[in-house]
């Protein structure tokens, strides 16, 4: 579960890979040495044609295998997501059922490596309780047994173990953790978690703590500031500034007669224009204020409907659906305010790209933006005439 949320949708939907990720993927192939493939991005097209057919086919087959195995998940997070998974190393503390279940998911997905830290031996109570243990493991190191089963699940993953109790590891060897990308701590008491958390924070490692009790449980992520960019957000908020149209938009709206009697023209007036004009009309009748209470919003919708000539006017339906956009509070939201007011927005040479962007945004808002964000610029689909 942690991986999905941490990396979110960082994988692009268009799957044309960068040459960097292609290299990484090929370098990872379990032991098959195909030297001519690695520098592939450097070779021109003509060179590729000259390679012998059988080498090409072997290369295709070897490259195809992980692609086939991971095909269904590549369609979720793409090459880049997969590369990030394969670069990562996980440390699991305690491999009881909770930890095992988590590792199973990571290993199946092709995580780079897992290291299990668990000092216990397999006991009767573990059997039937953990699907990666069977009778033959009784008395043996639990960590070792789990690892050998995990290895079976995916031989591309490096599965290692340390026979040590996590609490002892935390107390005596904190530097052990710095080699990992993520530490997954299961069934640890709070005292150990507190110590572990400060170790991870100073080493800039992600800590995921999980506990389960019967039908309840918890997962908690402890991570330093982490930037996730939603490059293709599902729900884009059309930013049209209907509550405060800029001069050119106002002009454009004014140039259109929304009461044109021609039915074709009338039903093709873009809804944005309808809203700009009617919002203005409303404001004129309400002391310069735009609809804000639920009652007013309803009345505004009625006002829009009153302008319809016909039931089948899609543009007016669109206007009604988007009518709430004129009631947007001007200025920037609290969440954004919190970010730009953060001390990290005072940038210096060591600041991350994200904070540099924030600093620029802050300046924009204070100057050209006049208290508002830059306009996104995309125009949503709407019913209108071609011109």
């Amino acid at each position, binding site marked *: *579960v942690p*991986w*999905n949320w941490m990396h979110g949708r960082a994988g692009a939907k*268009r*799957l*044309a*890979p960068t040459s960097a990720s*292609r290299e990484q993927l090929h370098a990872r192939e379990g032991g098959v040495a195909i030297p001519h*493939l690695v520098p*592939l991005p450097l070779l021109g097209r003509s060179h*590729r*044609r000259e*390679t*012998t*057919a*059988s080498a*090409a*086919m072997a*290369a*295709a087959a070897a*490259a*195809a*295998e992980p*692609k*086939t*195995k*991971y*095909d*269904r*998940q590549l*369609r*979720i997070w793409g*090459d880049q997501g997969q590369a990030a998974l394969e670069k990562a190393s996980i440390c699991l503390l305690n491999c009881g059922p909770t930890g095992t*279940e988590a590792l*199973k*998911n990571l290993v*199946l*997905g*092709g995580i780079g490596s897992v290291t299990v830290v668990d000092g216990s031996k397999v006991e009767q109570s573990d*059997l*039937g*309780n*953990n*699907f*990666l*243990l*069977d*009778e033959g493991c009784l008395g043996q190191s639990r960590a070792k047994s789990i690892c050998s089963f995990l290895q079976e*699940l*995916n031989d591309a993953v490096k599965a290692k173990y340390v026979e040590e109790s996590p609490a002892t590891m935390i107390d005596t060897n904190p530097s052990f953790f710095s080699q990992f990308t993520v530490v997954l701590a299961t069934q640890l008491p709070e005292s150990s978690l507190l110590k572990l958390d400060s170790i991870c924070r100073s080493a800039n490692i992600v800590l995921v703590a999980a506990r389960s009790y019967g*039908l309840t449980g918890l997962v908690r992520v402890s991570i330093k500031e982490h930037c996730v960019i939603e490059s293709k957000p*599902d729900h884009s*908020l059309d930013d049209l500034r209907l509550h405060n149209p800029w001069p050119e938009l106002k002009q454009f709206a004014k140039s259109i007669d929304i009461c044109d009697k021609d039915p074709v023209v009338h039903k093709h007036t873009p809804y944005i224009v309808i809203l700009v004009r009617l919002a203005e009309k409303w404001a004129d009748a309400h002391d310069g204020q735009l609809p804000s209470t*639920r009652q007013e*919003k309803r009345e505004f919708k009625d006002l829009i409907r009153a302008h319809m000539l016909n039931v089948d006017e899609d543009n007016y*339906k669109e206007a*009604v*659906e988007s009518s*709430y956009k004129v009631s947007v509070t001007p200025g920037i939201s609290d969440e954004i305010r919190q970010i730009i007011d953060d001390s990290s927005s005072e940038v210096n040479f060591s600041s991350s790209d994200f904070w540099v962007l924030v600093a620029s945004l802050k300046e924009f808002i204070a100057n050209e933006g006049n208290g508002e964000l830059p306009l996104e610029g995309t125009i949503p689909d709407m019913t209108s005439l*071609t011109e």
Partner: protein
Amino acid sequence: MASAAAPASSEEAVKAAKVLMVGAGGIGCELLKTLALSGFSDIHVIDLDTIEVSNLNRQFLFRKSHVGQSKAHVARDAILKFRPNINIESHHANVKDAQFNVDFFKQFNVVLNGLDNLDARRHVNRLCLAAEVPLVESGTTGFLGQVTVHVKGKTECYECQPKPIPKSYPVCTITSTPSKFVHCIVWAKELLFAKLFGDKNQDNDLNVHSKDGSSSKLDVFERDVDEDLDQYAQRIYDHVFGYNIEVALENEETWKNRRRPNPVYIRDTLPEAVKQNGSSWDCSNDHEEPSAMASLGLTNPQEIWTLAENSRVLLEAFKLFFEKREKEIGNLVFDKDDQLAVEFVTAAANIRAHSFGIPLHSLFEAKGVAGNIVHAVATTNAIIAGLIVIEAIKVLQDDYKNYRMTYCLEHPTKKLLLMPVEPFEPNPSCYVCSETPLLLDVNTKVTKLKEVIDKIIKSKLGMNLPLVMIGSTLVFEDGDGLEEDEAANYALNLEKVLAELPAPVINGTKLTVEDFQQELSCSINIKHREEFDEEKEPDGMVLSGWSAPVEKQINSNGENKSAASSSSARATDDTVEDPSKPGMKRKLDELLETKENCDASSSAQVVEDDDDCTMLDGNPALIKKKRLQ
């Protein structure tokens, strides 16, 4: 239900339970594991599939060495390794087989579905209703998932809310005016590939005529005697991408408001190929699967090829089919696991896309579209499996007040990842569980019985082996064990128009349709109508009779469009079909909008209104149908 009184504790209920799992794939593996770990000890598993490499990223009971073996059997063996003392019976079979009849289903306390297709789900739903066994349904797509509970008489059955019909596209969009890549894929798959390599007797909408007088052939797709393979390939290329486009351009009306396509000819895309007669990019292709990509040295399925590369792939794939797989030509059906077929379809779709100004796609993407591949990951299946077992335990204890339909979302909404909702009461006009009669508008003078059976009874109503009666006259029966003369009689009836059947079907006639195995019986009232809208009612018949919720359609990009529903469900067999992904997302969106729209009269789109309501069980403002008491 097998036991008379509800058992005292969940532990006892679990111990005593006999459970049927249908499906041993993504959900099935996780479910079997969870059932075993939860103490279930009497499990039957049915799955008709064998293990493939692409399963291995999530169906963790399987290993590489198991590829090709039965999922049901291997899953069983894997579980017995860590829980040797439980009883698992595995069936490598289709759940629609006759052996899984009502009596078979009756032996179970609960049925758990982990299926991947609507057809089987409906079938199981009907058997569970007939056997009066509760059903826990489920499904996943990527990070989305859901678990629903269906108990006869208490909750909706799986079919109380009609599921979306597979997405299909109007014929003209595919043959003349594609605007999306998926249209090009459907063209490449269903028209070009089918025409060249599929059943010759099938109707096909591709234009087969060449310029008037230039050829005496009826069908330009036929290879001339002794025609050189290269030449044949190039000739076909020019015909479909060049000539056919020119012909289409002649119709001005079509292009008045549309971008005009560009004809594409080999002499422009691959000038060197025209000069080289007979030499292909040769390579010793005697091992394994022939592949155009391999021959051409294209190794990355995620790369988007240029027009020239696509053209080379097309010609090479074309030739490889004739050179290496000649025997199959005439019988081939597109299969997403057939590498050469995928290469061919990708290349053809891309060239067509280029013509029409549609962005090109990589083989990887094209394969997903052409093969209707559903993205999938282990974690969602694990979550859903857990939820299935939780609901199953409630069912075993008859704890009906706590049954929940649970939706697992892609992104937390209002800080919730899982959204539990109370089930609805059965839909009184559901033809499956409430025996409401249906209405069929059809031209009885012109429509054959065969068409009604194929388009309505088998496909829309989902009956497997139907029986059709008019009054007391049996006009059709399907299945084994028919006498020769009976079978001959039915065959005759199939070809008769409705009005001329032994018991004539006219306006007002009532058909009784049954499927014994599903124990489903329903009546269809016939309404004779002569005029049908060619575009909106291409089948020439319209079935109606249950009150559908707002009908939403998903196209292959997963976009959501809602259309106000009429009470008729449209059969669209005349159009070129392209089944959509499972209907999970649609259901979720419906649910989310039910919660967010307090105003029942507002339109169906999700409105991001400041005044949205929080979802509470039993909130009277939200409930349109009666909730389970």
